[in-house]
């Protein structure tokens, strides 16, 4: 273990960028508390931590998006003041955000030059495209400069963002949760790009909460928790278990439990389900049976129909053929409410924006999938919200807080609590990627909740 403070400009290269005692507050939280961080030339330095640990905040301070209340940003040994990301770019610092900032209707090349200062009145399209092509070549970022961004996959859009940063002359790239939206082969591609960049002396800050992958790519890993740096390790010293403990601040159990539970009757069955959407077959002849006390996983690369299957079971889509039965009641074609009445609960992949109404309070969100009468019973929902907050240790100022202000893990707790312990007493659960985007601690909670539901005889 080496602490961050004792890390000096090491042999790998001169110090490229550093944060000294950076403090950044948001109303109610200290997102960064006296944080020190440094980055050498040609280095991949990972910021690891749970959601809300302050990693993205630190990265945003480093690229000029946020101004810290205290502390300095040092570039090549001199203190710099960054008032905007544009100032950051002027110093060769660029950030690739988790949520892309691209114009869907523009081509790759147009997006790359977007916001670039030295644009002539008439775009020298051919020249720009040639330059973009050269960058994609050099760093192994396969992209067609003429493709329209709206038609690209998440991985390709990310490459556009990286190309854009490089085009603008970035020497230091801050990648905020770059793998969150990528499939495994795309992650590999991203890693080789990162290596190509460090090879020519560029530095990369890699913000992530995924333990497994950061060990491969990083030269150094700095762990943050609750706005502070809790430790820093070099390549080779990294031990997944140790890093995980630094992240959550306590011993954790990474391997999910596989408890033996009593398997009961078939509660959910789908037979010969066939779904077409916009003329394309999304699901073909799907058969599925889930018994009480059993968790059945449906796996596959995103976009292969898991979501459609979940929506068919949840009654949101009506299949062209086939039957879905929940607790003995056929539900296909009876809509989402029909499926719920039959005893189904559904946790969609998209938490905020589908599973929860983001601007509404925790209390009001608990009402969402209940049977509601003419008048809404907010009193009991308030009581329920208070109970959940206490039992599941949901971190929030109170039951009237809008769910969009919760961290991903806490929002998922609200959603799961509603679907698992709903007053209606659902016996069949459909849960989509429940741990996506969550940190280790929250993943553990989600697994524990699902195990508990399974042990209670529910079909998942």
């Amino acid at each position, binding site marked *: 273990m080496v602490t961050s403070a004792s890390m000096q400009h090491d042999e790998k290269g001169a110090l490229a960028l550093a944060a000294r005692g950076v403090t950044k507050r948001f109303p109610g939280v200290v997102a960064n508390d006296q944080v020190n961080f440094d980055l050498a030339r040609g280095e991949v330095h990972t910021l690891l931590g749970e959601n809300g640990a302050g990693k993205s905040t630190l990265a945003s301070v480093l690229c000029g998006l946020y101004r810290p209340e205290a502390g300095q940003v040092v570039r090549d040994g001199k203190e710099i003041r960054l008032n905007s990301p544009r100032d950051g770019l002027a110093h060769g610092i660029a950030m690739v955000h988790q949520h892309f900032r691209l114009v869907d209707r523009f081509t790759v090349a147009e997006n790359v030059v977007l916001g670039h200062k030295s644009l002539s009145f008439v775009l020298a399209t051919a020249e720009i495209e040639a330059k973009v092509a050269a960058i994609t070549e050099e760093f192994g970022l396969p992209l067609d400069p003429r493709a329209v961004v709206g038609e690209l996959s998440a991985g390709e859009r990310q490459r556009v963002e990286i190309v854009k940063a490089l085009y603008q002359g970035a020497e230091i790239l801050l990648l905020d949760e770059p793998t969150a939206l990528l499939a495994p082969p795309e992650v590999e591609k991203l890693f080789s790009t990162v290596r190509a960049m460090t090879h020519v002396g560029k530095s990369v800050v890699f913000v992530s909460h995924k333990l497994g992958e950061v060990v491969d790519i990083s030269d150094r890993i700095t762990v943050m928790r609750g706005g502070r740096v809790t430790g820093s390790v070099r390549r080779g010293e990294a031990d997944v278990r140790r890093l995980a403990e630094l992240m959550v601040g306590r011993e954790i159990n990474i391997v999910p439990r596989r408890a033996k539970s009593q398997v009961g009757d078939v509660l959910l069955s789908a037979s010969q389900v066939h779904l077409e959407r916009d003329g394309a077959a999304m699901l073909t002849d799907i058969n599925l049976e889930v018994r009480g006390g059993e968790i059945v996983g449906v796996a596959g690369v995103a976009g292969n129909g898991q979501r459609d299957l979940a929506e068919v079971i949840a009654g949101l889509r009506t299949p062209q053929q086939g039957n879905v039965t929940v607790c003995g009641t056929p539900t296909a074609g009876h809509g989402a409410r029909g499926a719920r009445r039959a005893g189904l609960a559904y946790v969609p992949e998209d938490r905020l924006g589908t599973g929860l109404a983001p601007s509404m309070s925790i209390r009001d969100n608990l009402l969402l999938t209940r049977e509601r009468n003419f008048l809404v019973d907010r009193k009991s929902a308030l009581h329920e919200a208070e109970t959940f907050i206490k039992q599941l240790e949901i971190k929030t100022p109170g039951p009237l807080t809008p769910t969009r*202000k919760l961290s991903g893990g806490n929002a998922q707790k609200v959603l799961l609590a509603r679907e698992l312990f709903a007053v209606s007493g659902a016996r069949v659960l459909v849960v989509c990627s429940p741990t996506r985007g969550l940190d280790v601690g929250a993943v553990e909670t989600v697994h524990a909740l699902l195990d508990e539901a399974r042990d209670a005889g529910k079909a998942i």
Partner: protein
Amino acid sequence: MIVLGRRIQMEQRMAVPKSAVVIVPVVSVIAALVVGGVFLALTGHPPVRTYLDLLDNGYTSFYGITDTLGLATPLICTGLAAAFAFRMNLYSIGQEGQMYLGMIGGAWAGIVLADSLPPLIAVPSVLLFGALAGAAWIAVPAFLRARLGTSEIVSTLLLNYVALNLVNYFIFGSQGFFRDPTTSFPQGRAVADSARLSPLSFFTEKSTNTYPTFFVAVLLAVMLFWFMRVSNYGYETAVYADSPNTARYAGMSSAWLQSSVLLVSGALAGVGGAMYVVGPAGKVDPGLLQVGLGYAGIVVAALARYNFLAVVLAAVLFAGLRTGGNALQVSNDPVPIAIAVVLQGAVLLFALGGELFRRNKVTLVRVQKATT
């Protein structure tokens, strides 16, 4: 480090402080008055005295306030109509036309039905038919929106012009049902006496331009406010407004929510037109076309930030500017009505601009040359 100058910096507020909710609108109105004052001074009118006159003629004198409340009555309805739709992110701007149709529908009921009915039934039936006519006028845009996703902005706006010409046709273009048969002067056929309310006197001997419908409008606002808070319907529209995906996930029908909200919005604007029949007009009166109370309803809804109770206050504020401005025109030192319109525009601009200050923390920062 070299100070180059100052620059305005904005940061989104995480939580809106309670004080900003009060201070920002007050400052907005004051700022609007200052801007209006500049125009007054430029046109050679003493700003302070003109404002005092405006205040007196619009709000504080007996006839001023009663005129204002009378004008505010249909304005509350169109304001509620706009707020009701805008809350659901449905930008219907057809309140003007729906209000005309409400006037036509209300007058029809007042002529045909009311004769045989006591006022206690006749007046509500005029309002009801006004509501139905207003809802009918938005039915096609509502259907197009809910089923085909057609922009309600365009369809409702265009129907305003159809409604406008319909009223003109009934009164000026034809000898039809709504035209007064007893005179060759182009005016509307009067509704039955039982379908009319007499103006309020407010315990004096004077006759005013405020009608009991004012209290009906206020009651509508209170009922809407309460209903949308406690009812399942209010809950579902709030979920839909926040996130249509979430509403779909919860099994709510977007077609039903969108079309019903638009229909209710149309009905509210229609009631406003019918109140004009029950109150001052007593007939289909093209005079309503001059006032623009439908479009003003959109402004009122925006000022009220779509809060139904605040719509009442905003409507009274707005109507007062109008009546006060009208009175200034005929005073000893006539101020052109354009100035009153400038003032209304300034109030709206500053109120909407004030939103920026409510949502963001705005600070002045020194721009320093970055030392590299």
